[in-house]
């Protein structure tokens, strides 16, 4: 499932080559870091989680099975690490399903949105998504996971995961384009 280069790097990691580990993680560095940053909301926590993910993945690389995509395996570790930390901190506020006031951000519905503007709007919308919807959206976008994989990682039924995605996209869409369009 992984590319040849990736497979070679994984094999070298298993043989204890530390430089191979750096090269392997670098492939997913941006995706992984931005996922953690978006999920926990601040850089310091994201860096701590990133570090912990690296430690766990280096320790566990011998147990990684090629039947799974490496990125999915890596994101699963990151996701579980983040969830553990959240549980420990008991940050109820982050997990509480708060309904955002997304429509307050909506501008002229007929205005054509391009490039940077769309991205800014998506960013704002993702920030205020309820936790579960944000989690699924980020695993799809940053983790490049399939919804079946997300269901496994989050330990939720596939239909629930699809429903979270459905609502998050719906909210983002509402923010980007008027519903009346």
């Amino acid at each position, binding site marked *: 499932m992984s590319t040849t280069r990736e497979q070679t790097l994984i094999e070298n990691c298993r043989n204890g080559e530390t430089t191979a580990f750096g090269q392997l993680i670098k492939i997913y560095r941006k995706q992984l870091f*931005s996922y953690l940053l978006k999920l926990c909301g601040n850089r310091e926590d994201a860096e701590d989680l990133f*570090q912990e993910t690296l430690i766990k993945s280096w320790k566990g690389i011998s147990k990684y099975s090629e039947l799974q995509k490496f990125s999915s395996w890596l994101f699963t570790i990151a996701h579980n690490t983040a969830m553990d930390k959240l549980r420990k901190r008991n940050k109820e506020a982050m997990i509480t399903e708060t309904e955002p006031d997304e429509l307050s951000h909506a501008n002229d519905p007929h205005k054509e949105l391009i490039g940077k503007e769309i991205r800014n709007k998506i*960013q704002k919308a993702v920030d205020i998504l309820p936790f579960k919807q944000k989690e699924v959206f*980020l695993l799809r976008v940053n983790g490049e996971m399939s919804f079946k994989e997300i269901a496994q990682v989050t330990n939720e039924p596939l239909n629930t995961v*699809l429903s979270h995605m*459905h609502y998050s996209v719906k909210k*983002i869409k509402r923010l*980007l384009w008027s519903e009346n369009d």
Partner: protein
Amino acid sequence: MINDENMICSEFEKEVYLYLDNDLLTDRKEYWKQHVVNCKTCSSFISEVEIILDQAHVELTEDMFDAKFNAMVKKAVQKKEFKIAEWLFPQGTAKEKFAFSLKLAVVGVLATIAIIISLTTRQPNTVKTISNELLDWEGKKVTSQINEIKNTIDMIHEDNWDRQMILLDQRMKALENKSDKFSFN
């Protein structure tokens, strides 16, 4: 008819993600493929979803400095060994380091004060004093034990006193007789 169409379209809204992931059975996938071609609502919906996913990916790509990343990798792969330097100067936030240094400084100051006090204060040689007292006490103890044994022996001997006296008397008489014999000679 329109209602049926709406129902099909809202069905597609839910399945679109599996459709994009190629996680539908071939028949189902073909069905939606045909539907999207013929349905303006669903074809615009799928392109909107694709725009959101593509743009979100670009925007959510945050990064960190190479130096930071390399340091993190290094930390992740290093073997845990006991290092005296790390023990004395632990890794951590500036706040943690300051707290540790402060504790270390307090302990150092207290230890120095204790040493100075012990050096400047005149104190009797405790080892010698204890040793003499011990000897004195042990001496008294031994004497009393000897006396006790002596008394016991005396008491035992008292029981046979009469017998001893008779034997002594007999021996004295025998000696007297002997001396008499000598004097007659």
